[in-house]
């Protein structure tokens, strides 16, 4: 009995499209027109119906569009066979070939790659990690120690603990408040959750504009650009000095990375960026393994290193050798600012990437954000710090004021070719960070000025890479810190306002209710 019910249901389901085709064909054949174009007409109707229903959200309008498309296809057929008296069979075949072609063509044009634009959580993590694990992990940590003493490392850890919570909130809100731009692409980031989430519209708009403006500035002159190329250039120079005994001027590696980034941003050679992003996870592993090997070889130094980190955290660091010493405040300041520079928690940059991830629920991406901070600061930064402190080189006068070269030189004391590993890591981290930040800031520009004016911005961005590579370390990182502050300020205010929303989303996710599931066109994601 059940079998027959199923059979009947399946018959009806399969007969439905046939009924439409048959009724239409019977109608025209009664009038003496054999319409072989109905196959193509059904294709075109299916496409236009879907496209209109998708764009308007109304199935009724979709149905109307499909009907109009069918009428139009019939009109073409009529023009050819009735008005002109052309051969019916050939016209019908032509109509079918043409309409199927047009439907598939437009379908490709409008909808393909759409899935690709919503990236997987892992891809979002890679993008964010590629941008996050940057030279903050190599040069930044060295700078923190040089400025704030060993205690800075402790404050960096503290900062990371808070940072995990911040990043969780940022990524969650990023997904929840994302929008679909007029270009059809998803867009997200603090400017959207601030402006859409803060109840006072005027305040939200002002803070969002402030974020977008300083976000753009940071990428141009701060951590997103000049600080990166600076570290890359310096580790290269150090590597060539230790390996090849060759003094290379800073502008040589600077020019190299400028040209490479320029090829991607201006020449559109995406393969380079894709390769770099694939290499980053591998590079992190190589870097961490090298650092672990170093630590294993110098295991006897570790108790001293840890006691140094913890004792200096709450007391002023004494001047040792070339190290001029640091107050506790300097230690906190250096640790926190370098920590933020490195893991970018609270800065507002990472949610731009996290926000467009293809996840079921916003909080899901939040947990990915936590993992990102953990990898970046607790794992990678700590490795760098332990290596530098255990080498003792941080007290030597020669390395005061140099950051990337300190890490490189420190690791070279035990690991052969360490400077090459550091230089290569630094290069890859820096390269992917530059590309990642370029994307972040284009999104800021898009928010400020709409989807134009990308090319001039990219030209300036590329030139500044070269400038950054030859500038002095302290100037570059100081500028970066300052701009980061301006960028983080509106973001942190936004996070404070939206704490309730984060809690609500978290509860929703972990209780399994899924009321706020992230659907690209859910009420949570309107169009700008």
């Amino acid at each position: 009995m059940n079998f027959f019910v199923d059979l009947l249901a399946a018959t009806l389901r399969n007969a439905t499209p046939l009924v439409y085709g048959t009724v239409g064909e019977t109608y025209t054949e009664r009038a003496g027109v054999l319409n072989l174009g109905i196959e193509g007409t059904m294709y075109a109707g299916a496409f236009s119906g879907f496209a209109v229903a998708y764009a308007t959200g109304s199935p009724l309008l979709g149905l109307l569009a499909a009907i109009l498309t069918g009428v139009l296809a019939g009109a073409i057929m009529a023009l050819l066979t009735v008005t002109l008296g052309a051969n019916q069979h050939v016209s019908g075949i032509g109509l079918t070939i043409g309409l199927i072609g047009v439907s598939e063509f437009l379908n490709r044009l409008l909808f393909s790659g759409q899935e690709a634009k919503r990236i997987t959580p892992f891809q979002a993590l890679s993008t964010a990690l590629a941008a996050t694990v940057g030279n903050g992990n190599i040069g930044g940590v060295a700078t923190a120690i040089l400025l704030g003493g060993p205690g800075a490392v402790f404050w960096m850890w503290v900062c990371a603990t808070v940072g995990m919570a911040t990043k969780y909130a940022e990524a969650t809100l990023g997904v929840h408040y994302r929008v679909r731009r007029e270009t059809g692409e998803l867009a997200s980031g603090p400017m959207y959750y601030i402006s859409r989430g803060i109840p006072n519209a005027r305040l939200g708009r002002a803070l969002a504009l402030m974020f977008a403006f300083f976000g753009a500035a940071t990428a141009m002159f701060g951590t997103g650009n000049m600080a990166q190329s600076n570290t890359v250039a310096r580790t290269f120079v150090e590597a060539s000095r230790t390996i090849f005994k060759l003094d290379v001027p800073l502008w040589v590696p600077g020019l190299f990375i400028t040209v490479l980034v320029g090829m991607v941003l201006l020449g559109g050679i995406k393969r380079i960026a894709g390769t770099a992003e694939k290499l980053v996870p591998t590079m992190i592993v190589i870097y961490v393994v090298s650092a672990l090997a170093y630590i294993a070889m110098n295991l006897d130094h570790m108790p001293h290193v840890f006691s140094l980190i913890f004792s200096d955290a709450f007391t002023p660091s004494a001047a040792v050798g070339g190290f001029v010493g640091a107050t506790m405040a300097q230690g906190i300041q250096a640790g926190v600012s370098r920590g933020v520079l490195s893991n970018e928690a609270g800065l507002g940059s990472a949610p731009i990437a996290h926000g467009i991830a293809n996840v079921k629920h916003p909080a899901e991406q939040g947990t990915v954000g936590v993992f990102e901070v953990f990898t970046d600061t607790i794992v990678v930064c700590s490795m760098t710090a332990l290596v530098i402190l255990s080498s003792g080189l941080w007290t030597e006068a020669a390395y005061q004021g140099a950051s990337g070269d300190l890490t490189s030189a420190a690791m070279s004391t035990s690991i052969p070719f360490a400077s090459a590993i550091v230089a290569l890591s630094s290069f890859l981290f820096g390269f992917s960070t530059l590309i990642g930040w370029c994307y972040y800031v284009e999104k800021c520009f898009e928010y400020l000025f709409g989807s134009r004016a990308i090319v001039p911005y990219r030209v300036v961005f590329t030139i500044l890479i070269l400038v950054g590579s030859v500038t002095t370390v302290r100037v570059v990182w100081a500028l970066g810190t300052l701009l980061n502050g301006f960028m983080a300020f509106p973001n942190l205010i936004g996070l404070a306002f939206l704490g309730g929303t984060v809690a609500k989303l978290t509860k929703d996710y972990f209780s399994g209710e899924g009321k706020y599931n992230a659907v690209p066109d859910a009420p949570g994601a309107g169009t700008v």
Partner: protein
Amino acid sequence: MTGQAGPMAAVRRSLRPTRWSTPGVAVAAVAITFALTAVPILLAEANPFAAYYEFLVSPLTSDFTRLEVLVGATPILFTGCAVAIAFKAGYWNIGAEGQLLLGAIAAAGIGQVVGDLPPIVALTLMIAGGALAGAAWALLPALLRVRFDIDEVVTTLLLNPVALLLVTGMLNGPWRDPVSGFPESPRIAAVAELPHLIERSRLHLGFLIALVVIGIAWYVLARTPAGLRLRATGLSPHGSRFAGVNVTRVLLGAALVSGAVAGIGGVSEVAGIQFRLTGGLSPGFGYTGIVVAMLGGLWMPGVILAAVFLGDLAVGASSAGRALGIPSQLGAVVQGTLLLVTVGLLALRRNRLARSTTPGTGAAVDSVAADLAQELAVVADPAEPEDQPGTREPGA
């Protein structure tokens, strides 16, 4: 046949535009098609001129792609020729797709068992087998048409998916590749492969065979009594029958030859390109053949030009897709538009022609055909007139 005075000569003169304006129609159709397809190209945010350059010129700029154009033209030379023969006789064979697939099945079947034979015998067997299979697939609709006056458009068209199902059935049943388990037939024997014409190119003997087939078809249609009977039947079955042409035989013959040529096209693809039967053997060669035949004005040299042009377009469509980021389905859009524009223009021309002759429009053309046929019957062939139900009213 020339030099006669009287009404026949006047009508001949008025028919003359047909001769010179066929290339004109083809060129105009291409121009109008490109104007129309500029719209989707602009939608894809590409420059139409750059797109046409990629489409038409860039495939001709390197040796490899030039040869690929001919490789792409090979199957549609066969189907275009097949369709042109049938259409010329007024037999609307929409089934070249299925007939090609049947030829491919035959080729794959014969190709697997002829390993011990010399290549020339093996290839002859495959071509003969493919031609027979294609003709056999065309036989049933043709019989239904001449015996019971059942519309061959519907029957030939509906047999296409059946042929595809037959291919799928073979590939998932007896011929599933025993090694890989893929739905692909075992590879044909080495002796059954059509030799390549040029080293390191996919261009194979099938291309030359296509040219020979088209040459024969051209000769028969243009220079023999049988060809004249076929054309006369196409112009006016009534007039031809009145003139003593055995229309049933002409239609059956045209249908079977058409099927056979399409079947050889299937052999050529199996033995020259794929070396086995696959589900994706034909991306609609049979339907593209209709475009080729119409664009070529149902005229064999025109079929060659149209097939090479569409081969160029096919190679260009895939490279333009990559170079300009235009979906490669644009190739299908151009094909469909081209076909519609061509039949539209042909209809326009026929209307003008009809108006320029005597009042009574279509009847004028019919009477011309009748005269032609009668003349032929007297001159060349004493075919006995007969009464037969196999022809339809024009315009039915």
